[in-house]
Structures are given as structure tokens and as C-alpha cells.
């Protein structure tokens, strides 16, 4: 077990889910796998909070879901981004980059 994996900062899980789904529709398990792989196992996705987040985004109308056959042949619940979800992703990315930029500035000044 890798020891020092980062917990995803509060509030960013939604954004990461939206980003993952912007590439292609996917089910919960695949989203979890993908987040872990892409981040090269650097972030720990708390699987327990993944599903509540998916349902919350669905209720907000940013995701839509449908039951579809997965690669294993079993039916899985596939989530995909809605138009509003796409817009939301742009907004979130924007604010995230502004935040990281600001944090970088502060670090640089202190450095």
C-alpha cells in the first residue's frame, strides 16, 4: 500500500468527476479507477464519498445517468455530462486556475 497518498481537497472531487466525464460517459467504478490511474496513484479517492458526489451532481442537473452494458457485460449506471455540467466544468476550471495561480504568487513572494 502506498503510504503518502494525498486526500483530495474538499470540494475538488466534484470538479474531478466533471473533468473525467467530459472525456467520455463512465460508471462509478471506472471513474474511481481512472482518477487513481491518471493521478499516478497520487490521490486517494475516497470511494465512500464518490457515490454521494455523483448523486448530488445528478440531482443538480449537471450529470445525466443511464443504465448501459459495460465492458464486463453487466449493466452499469453510466454518467455523462449535461450541457449545464459542461458549463459548470468551465467555471470550476477557471476558478481553480485562478486559485492555484494566486497560491503560487504567494509562495513565490515568500520564497
Amino acid at each position: 500500500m502506498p503510504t503518502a497518498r494525498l486526500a483530495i481537497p474538499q470540494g475538488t472531487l466534484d470538479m474531478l468527476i466533471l473533468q473525467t466525464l467530459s472525456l467520455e460517459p463512465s460508471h462509478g467504478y471506472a471513474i474511481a479507477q481512472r482518477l487513481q490511474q491518471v493521478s499516478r496513484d497520487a490521490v486517494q479517492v475516497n470511494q465512500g464519498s464518490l457515490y454521494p458526489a455523483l448523486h448530488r451532481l445528478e440531482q443538480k442537473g449537471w450529470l445525466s445517468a443511464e443504465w448501459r452494458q459495460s465492458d464486463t457485460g453487466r449493466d452499469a449506471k453510466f454518467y455523462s455530462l449535461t450541457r449545464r455540467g459542461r458549463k459548470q466544468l468551465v467555471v470550476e476550471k477557471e476558478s481553480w486556475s485562478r486559485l492555484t495561480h494566486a497560491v503560487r504568487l504567494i509562495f513565490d513572494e515568500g520564497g
Partner: protein
Amino acid sequence: MARILNLFPWRRRRLERDLDRELRYHTDRRVDELRRSGLSEAEARRQATLELGGIAQVQEEVRDTWIWRWVDHVGRDLRYGARALLRSRGFAATAMLSLALGIGGSAAIFSLVDQVLLRPLPVHEPGRLVLLDWNGRSLSANWGSGNLLSYPLCRDLEEQKRFFDGVFCRYPTTVHLLTGEEQDPVAADLVSGSYFPVLGVRPELGRLIDRSDDMRPGAHPVVVLSHDYWQSTLEGARDVVGRKVLVNNYPMTVIGVAPASFRGVDPFAAPALWIPAMMKRQATPEFDRLFDRRAFWMHVFGRLKPGMTAEQAKVGLQPWFRSMLEGETRLEGFPSTTAEQRRDFLASTIEVLPAAQGRSDLRPVLKRPLGVLMGGTVLLLLLATLNVAGLLLARGAARRRELTTRMALGASRGRVAGQLLVESMLIIAGGGLFGLLAAPAVARTLVSFLSQDADLSFRVDQRVFLFGFLVCVFAGGVCGLAPVLQIGRIPLIASLKERSRIAGGIRLRKALVVGQMAFTLLLLIGAGLFVQTLERLYAKGPGFTTSRLVMFRVDPPSIGYSERDAEQAMRTLLRDLQDLPGVERAAVANTHMLSGGSSSTVMVVQGESRIVTDRVLTMRVGPGFFATLGAQLVAGRDFDEREVRPPGSPETAPRAVIVNQSFARRYFGDRSPIGHHLGWGNRPNTVTNIEIIGVVRDFNRRTLREEAEQVFVSFWDRDSGDGAYYLRVRGDPESVFPAVRAAVRRVDPTLPVRSLMTFDEQIDRSLATERMLATLSSGFGVIALLLSIVGLYGVMSFVVTRRTPEIGVRLALGATRSAAVWLVVRDALIMIGTGAGIALPAAWALRRLVEAQLYGVSGFDGPTVALAAALLALAALGAAMLPAWRAASISPTETLRAE
């Protein structure tokens, strides 16, 4: 908002099913993966579940996203709570019944308080209406009751435009109105022309009386009908305007109909018609002193200018009022007075009273009893609330294991507390609902006690509903919070381990019982005081023997008799009654005694000097009246044939008068008044030619409480249209009722016998308020006692259960059984004592509020207080003895073995 749809069960089921599948898919995939890395099936499944952090927890969190969390929780708690309550029906019923009593009672009484004291008149800006009154000695002759002024004074006040947008006056009376076939006595208001315009009332039909109808006496024979009368007697005829009607046989024209919402300025006595004040002589033939400044008969109202307060108007009016008083003393016709009377007169002020609710004779009569009742029900409500809180605490304690188990399984304290709160709310809602359903019946009962003829009822309108709702919220807060507080303090692990010894918020429960003891003692003291008041009034009586005394009234003019024919009928009837076999004596008088009404006057006493009396009650009585009542003449003689005018001869002014002892003592001191002379009224030219021929022992005439100066003149001096007959009978008084009815029928088969009853019955009626207070306060006391005893018993049995091992050990170590009893009884005594310690100072502080309703006892009557406290202590100790006895019969060996 779409989330609210997720509450629907079909939608909810689909969501649940999908979530289940979704999570299963996830775990299965993960398990497969883990197994491929070499874990066993079971190990893999464990690991997968762990990673999710528990399937149930995830489900719970996901559910929260479906709908607002609290909505969901409340919904589930409601179902759970309802099921839990259904399982313990006895508990639920007891709690709801206690609350229904408190809530129903207070809502009923609030509806009466609202109607009697709070509700404003349905007119334009009622908040600006004020009632004007004379504060001081007015040296006036009065007709009517309370807050009276003269018509000229009303017109003077109209000129005070700095303060008023308008001033109007009214005189309530009864007239005989003939609109069709039947002539009925109906309530009428004589009003100034400004009445409707100043109130801002618009007609339903035609026009209303205005200033043009208020110009010259006798010149405005017009009437406005009330909506009720128009609908009920004239069936809402559209062509009613312009019709001729007869008012006391005088032709007048209907000019309009008032709107349904407007029922006059007395909320409890709506007139059937309004007549211009200028028609005074026609409307009230018995007296006509329209322009007499010393004749007070009208209620005068003003509409304050916007922004003006009653207090400002009162202060502002005084300079004018003072100069008006000065002016009046110089007017011709001002009564001759003593220096003291004149000084008092000049020191009078004008009072400006807020009158948004109009004015009613009933209000001052009902205000105090209703206040006392409201206080009583509020106490009872508090008590019921405490009782339910105690019940809920006890229930909470009993369910403690259930609750702690739920908390251990992951329910937050908030969730468990919320659930208890919902349960309390269910009980309160149930209690509130039953209470409000029962309230109309309670109110009807109260009304029948309070007043037979007042226009009072229970209406569940918004205000009463709002009140009931607020009471429920309050009760819910008090009883709902107690168990919640208790939950906050449960040490989870300890109470899971601990199996038998549970604390159960015992201190809080004891505090609740102390509160109940205090409220109960207050209610018991109240009950004692009101019961004694009633008993003392009954014991005192009116001042003569009332058994075997019967009375009734006849009113021949009401069925169309002329005054002269009526008098003839009255004389015939009296003779017939005197000849009835069961009748010992019979006599006639002008009024029903102890009915609250009376006429009064001021008089001039010609002793060594002329003295103007204060108001004295007057009554017209026939010969033999005092003998019939058994009221003893202490000096002089009764009226006899000399004072009976021969039939058909013209009316005469009274020539002889009998005074009561109070009158004699006040105006003659030790001297005998016999042979001295009085004059009727207080004008300077009042002739003092009425000779005092007798002095009669004091007796009550209007109410049993009153000690008043009274004079009696002969019934037969004047044409006497109507009157009351008094009969002293042999044997059972009710046995003569048929003979009395037959005697009246022999005179005229169509003449109705009114208010035929025994004198004792009339006393009962006159004491209606006192009886209501005594009955209800006793009822309150009994209910309170029961509730608090149940509360005490509950706590004490709980204490004994909890201390069983301790007591067992003590007994094993040699403590006596009586020591064990004492252990429990001491606890109860402390609670009773603390309750009394709170209640007694409170009773002392509250005594002034009830004193006006009492008779013959003080508001903090020592024996009553002691008796109430003893009763409470005895009942409470009785309730504590049962658990105490159980404590004493604990077997030491068994309890030790259980340890």
C-alpha cells in the same frame, strides 16, 4: 425543487433499487480485481466494503442528496413516531387528554376574552374611537348605566374640533315596533345625526340617519333598520325603504338598512333599529329631557384626530371643560347644592377612554371573571404541559436502551433527539386538535353560565386558531425539549454497559413535579376561595326568607294593551292571585328583583336644611309587598289604600315614600325620618312634598353583594303598564305554577307569563358568575390534583425501582422497614414542600386579582390556604405511600442475590 418529487414512494423505490444495483456493481468489480491479486473471496469482499466505508453509510449519504435531509427525516420520524405511539396507547391517550384539557380550555376562554375585551368594532379605523365620561360629581339625574352624559354636552363636544374629527352619542332603549302584523318590543338606539357619519358606516339600502335628521325635536320621524331585523322579520324585502312603521304607535318612515357587518357600538346588544335623538319623546315616552344639561342618559363617543392620543385629548379638553362647568353653575335650573357638592362638581374632569371595542354593560361585568378564568386555565395548561413533559421523560427513560442502541448503531444524537421531538409534536398536535374540537362545547357551557341573553358565542376564527396554535407551539417547546435535553446527557458507553440502574433525568422529573405541586396548590386555593364566596352569598341571602316565594312578570302593552287597559288587567290579576288557594300573600312591584337592573335617582331631603342625596335606588311597590317578602318594617307603616289610586283616575306624583335603613341612617342619623319630606330630583325648585311614612329593613334589590340606599314609592301612583308579581305560597312553591298560569289566562288567554320562577331560582341566576367560578375552579382544582398526583406517583415509583438495591442493602444491614418508608416519603415531602414554597408567595402576590370576585373572604384567607395545602399534602402523600410501601417490602436477600 424537483427533489421534492423524490418523496413519492414509487419514485423513491426506483431510486433505492438503482442505488443498490450501482453499489453492487462497484463492489463486485472491486472484489474481482482483489481476487485476481490473490485475496480470498471473503477477504476481498471485506476489503472492498471497507474501502467504501460501509455500504449502509454510503447509502445513507446518497439518500441525503435525493431530498433535503430534514424533510426526509421528519417524514420517517413521523411514521416511526406514529407507530411508537400506537404501541403505547395508554401513554399517548393520557398525554393527549392532559393537553386537550389545557389547550381546549384556554382556547375556549380566549375566544370569549377576545369577543368581550379585545375585538375592535367593525367600523372605519376603530382605534381612533374614544368614549367620553364624567369624572367626578355630576349632580345629574341618570337614565341607563355607566359613562352617561347629556345630549347638550354631546353637542358641545362636537365643537371641540381641535381634538375630534367627530363626536356622536347614542341611547339604548326598547321600543314597540310594528312593521307588519305583530308588535314586538325590540332594542333600539337613539342616535345623534353624527352617529353613522363619524363611525364611517355605509348603508346596505337607502340612506342612514345623518345630521339633517338631528335638527328639531319631533321633526324627523325616520328609522334605519338593522340588517338582522330586515332579514329575519321583513324577509329582506327590497322595497322596505319608504315603508311606514309604528314606533310606540307613532308613525315613522324607514329610510334605510344598515350593513350586516355593523351591529351598533355595543357588541353584545345589537339594536334592531336606529332612531334620531330628536324623536326622544316618541321613542321613550317615559321621560323627555333632551335639552336638559342635568339629564344624563347618552353614551358619547368621539373620533380622535389622526395622531391624537386619548391622553392628549383628555389633557387638552380640561380648560374648556372647566369653563363649561363654571358656566353651568350660573345657568338657570342648576340644582341648589351644598358647598361640598358644588366644590366636587367644579373639580370634575372629563375622561377620554379608548373605545375601539365599543362599549357594553357586559364588559365590566365579565372582565374580571374572565380574567380569573383565563388565569386558571393558563395555570392548568402549564400544569398539563409539565405533566406531559414528565410523561415523556419517563418514557424516554424506559426507552433508553432502545435509544442508546440506535446511537451506537450510528444515529447521531441530533437524529435521535429529532425523533423524540417529532413524537412529542405528534402528541401535542393530537392534544391540540382534540382541544380545539372540544373548545366550542366548553365555550357554550361558559356562556350559559356567564350570561343568558348576551350575544356571545364561540367562533373558531383566525384569532382563536392562531392562539391555539401558539399555545401548542409553546406546549410543544416545553414538553418536547425535556427528553431532548435528557438525550444530550446520556453517556453512551456507560449506559450500554449498565443494565439496570438508569438515572432517567430524575432531577428534571422531580423539578417538573415540584412545578405541578405549585400550580395545583394555586388552583386549589382559588377553588377554596370561590366556593366559600358562593357559600357565604347563599348563606347571607337577600335579607329575607326566600323559600316559598314565587315571582313572575307580565307585560300587557307588549301585546297591544293601552296603558289604561293594562293597568286594569294588572289590578284584576293581583286580586285573582290573592284569592288563589295556595297563596298566602301576593303583591306587585315594578321590577324583577336581583336581575341586575334597577332605576335610580337623586333626591332632595328636607330635614333642617335641604340636602341633595347621592344616587338612591328606587322601586315602585304595591301594598303588602314587604309583608310578602318578609322584609320587616322597623318604623312607620306600609303603603295601604291611601296610596292606591282609584282605577281610571289620572296619574299622581308620589306623595308617600318608604325608605330603607341605610337611607335613614345616612340622611337622618339617629333621628326618626318618619314625617319628614323628600323631593324627586335635584332642581332648585324641586318640591319636597313626598312624606316618609315608613322605614324598612335593608335587603338586596339588584345583586346580593350590594348594600345600597333605597326608596320605595307606591306602585299605583302612575299608570302601570307592566310589573312583577311576588307570591308567598304554602307548601311546595312550584305546585302553584299551574294555578298562576291559569289565573293569568283567566285575565287574558293571550297574555304571556314571563320569567315564572321561585325566588331561590332567581338567586341562582343572579349568582351565575359566582357559581361558574366556584364550579370551574373546583373542576380545575380536581383535575390539577389528579394530574400532579399521577406525576408524583410516576416519579416516586421510578425512584423506588432505581433504589431497590440500595434499600435492600440497608435493610440487610439492619435498617427498619419504617426507615425505608421514610426514605421515600421524605423525598415526596421535599417536593410537596418546595412546591408549596413557590405557590404560597405567588398566591399572596395574586390575591388582589381575585379579591373583586370574592365575598366574605380575603384573597389570602388563612384557613382556605391551610386547607388547600393540607389537601394537596394528603393526596400527594397518599400517592407516595404506594411506592414507599413497595420499598419497605423489598426482600434484602433477593436484592443482594441480584447484585
